[in-house]
């Protein structure tokens, strides 16, 4: 029997419009997350990673046009009313937002912000909610949790605030966690602590995680599967080991090579030439073609589809890079 996936997204597209112009922020994105699975979503800023997550939760509906299907435990939730969506959001699917500095309400105490989620989604009474809030803060590693419930966000440091965000997200025991750059604003030592915590919870509570990041190191160390996004589309998708060890899409190769690891110090780093295209005028063919070194004539005319290649890997490229070591090293 095939295990039921938690989240299945098919052909998700989100289009914003500005001054009558359509901005395709996300195009035909499909992926699925199972129980206890950690999926990494990587790409440069503006590649549509965050918008994808927001579209899953129905947060982009108000600003743009969202099409495609989002299946949560088998039911399509993309057409849910705001009211019905609210029962899923925060309760079954929780999200950690990028900036711990701005996503907490500065006027409410941390304790209130955690118990707020609980009163919306659980039947616990006041005392139980308080108890759970202390438990959550304890779990995310905030010392003397009981005393800190009455503190305001400004009394916490950046790392602590991010932990509070995680505590809020996890308070109602969600089955899926969408984490939008949870550690980008933090120092490496704190980043390691937070990622360890998320991994531990994924394992212990069998929680699915979608981790958006632009740090390939984070993906390598925490995720099982990874999807690389470029200009709103997934260009390569597969198991982490497969994709990072032998990337096939020229963009993934470029990303991997621009990380200064295992290169002689003070030599020129590889960099992908050019800049990402603006959404207002995406190239007709493959969006990466203008920056790609492996182009052929049809790259500029036709858009490559995301197709299965070897052993579960999906790739959208006409001229994949075959071996990283042989040709490029």
């Amino acid at each position, binding site marked *: 029997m095939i295990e039921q996936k938690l989240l299945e997204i098919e052909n998700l597209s989100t289009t914003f419009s500005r001054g009558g112009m359509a901005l395709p922020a996300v195009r035909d994105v499909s992926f699925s997350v199972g129980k206890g699975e950690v999926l990494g979503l990587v790409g440069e800023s503006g590649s549509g990673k965050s918008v994808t997550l927001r579209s899953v939760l129905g947060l982009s509906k108000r600003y743009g046009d969202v099409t495609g299907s989002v299946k949560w435990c088998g039911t399509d939730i993309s057409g849910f009313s705001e009211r019905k969506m609210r029962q899923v959001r925060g309760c079954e699917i929780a999200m950690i937002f990028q900036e711990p500095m701005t996503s907490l309400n500065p006027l409410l105490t941390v304790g209130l912000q955690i118990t707020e989620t609980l009163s919306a989604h659980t039947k616990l009474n006041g005392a139980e909610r308080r108890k759970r809030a202390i438990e959550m803060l304890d779990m995310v590693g905030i010392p003397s949790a009981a005393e800190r419930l009455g503190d305001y966000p400004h009394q916490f440091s950046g790392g602590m605030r991010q932990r509070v965000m995680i505590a809020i997200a996890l308070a109602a025991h969600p089955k899926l966690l969408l984490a939008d750059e949870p550690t980008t604003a933090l120092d490496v*030592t704190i980043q390691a602590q937070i990622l360890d915590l998320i991994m531990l919870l994924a394992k212990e509570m069998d929680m699915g995680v979608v981790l958006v990041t632009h740090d390939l*190191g984070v993906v390598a160390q925490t995720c099982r599967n990874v999807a690389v996004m470029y200009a709103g589309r997934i260009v390569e998708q597969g198991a982490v080991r497969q994709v990072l060890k032998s990337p096939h899409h020229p963009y993934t190769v470029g990303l991997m090579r621009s990380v200064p*690891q295992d290169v002689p110090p003070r030599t020129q780093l590889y960099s992908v030439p050019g800049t990402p295209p603006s959404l207002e005028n995406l190239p007709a063919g493959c969006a990466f073609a203008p920056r790609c070194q492996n182009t052929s004539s049809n790259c500029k005319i036709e858009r490559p589809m995301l197709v299965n290649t070897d052993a579960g890997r999906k790739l959208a490229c006409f001229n994949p890079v075959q071996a990283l070591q042989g040709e490029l090293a």
Partner: protein
Amino acid sequence: MTSTVMEIKDLALEFKVSRSIVDVIRRRPGKVVRALNGVSLHMEKGETLGVVGESGCGKSTLARCIVRLYEPNRGKIKFRNQDIFAADFRNDRSYNKRVQMMFQDPYSSLNPRMTAGQIITEALSVHEMRPPAEIPARMAELLDLVRLSQDAAEKLPHEFSGGQRQRIAIARALAVEPEVLIADELVSALDVSVQAQVVNLLLELQERLNLTIMFVAHDLRLVRHVSNRVAVIYLGRIVEIGDSESLFSNPAHPYSQALLSAAPSVDPDDTSGAIRLEGELPSPLNVPPGCAFHVRCPYKTENCTRDIPVLRLIENMGEVACHNAEEIAKNA
């Protein structure tokens, strides 16, 4: 042959926290943020000195002291044997010309109402680098140097991407033909692929113009890549300083060890034991006595809570400020 360009001795800087009215009434003493607690280092001509540490450790404060944005409470900074805070040198603008700083945030460090051309021209004319007639030609040369197209001169900062803005900042800094560049988190706000472009440019310009660079950053892989020597700072104090490669491959101070192992490797198979630090950086309002790191240190001894360790040269390693460095190295 190398020569010392910059010498910093025992630099200390405290910021007074403004007292609230309640504190004044209750006669509570004002609090003091101890941002730097005695930093000593030197920079040689043509080298890159990397400075790493967690946020709040005093990296940026150090950088700002060097360009005289802050005045230290104690200690000296000598540039070519000239004390830069000496009364007769303080207003000497030629220093600002020879030591230039580039800032972290490419979105707020350029005046949004000046075009890229005006920004660079301002630097050229204020310091009278060229006679007015030659300024346009020099500006074109600078844009070319940082690989921006000539029509960039007419554009306002918001029309550029983050990477391009940082290049304008580099062009502005280079306009006055400095000897020393202070790069405070120059590429932290940029994406990996753009980061590589800016770093490449910096390395290339350094070679061509024989610049001395202080590279302040929190991305350890990047610091390892660009630096000749690296200083690790913890709560306003250097805990380890030494040759980049040997420090990264064989860190001696327990804090450097933890910091370096916390950077995730891009190789999924490389799960080699990361050392996890407990807790967070203590507040600089309240620096622990003795070795400031002892509250998080797995190797602490009684001595650590009492005496402040000084930087000392350890064989086969750089300079380390730890009482037990030899013991730790032996057991590793």
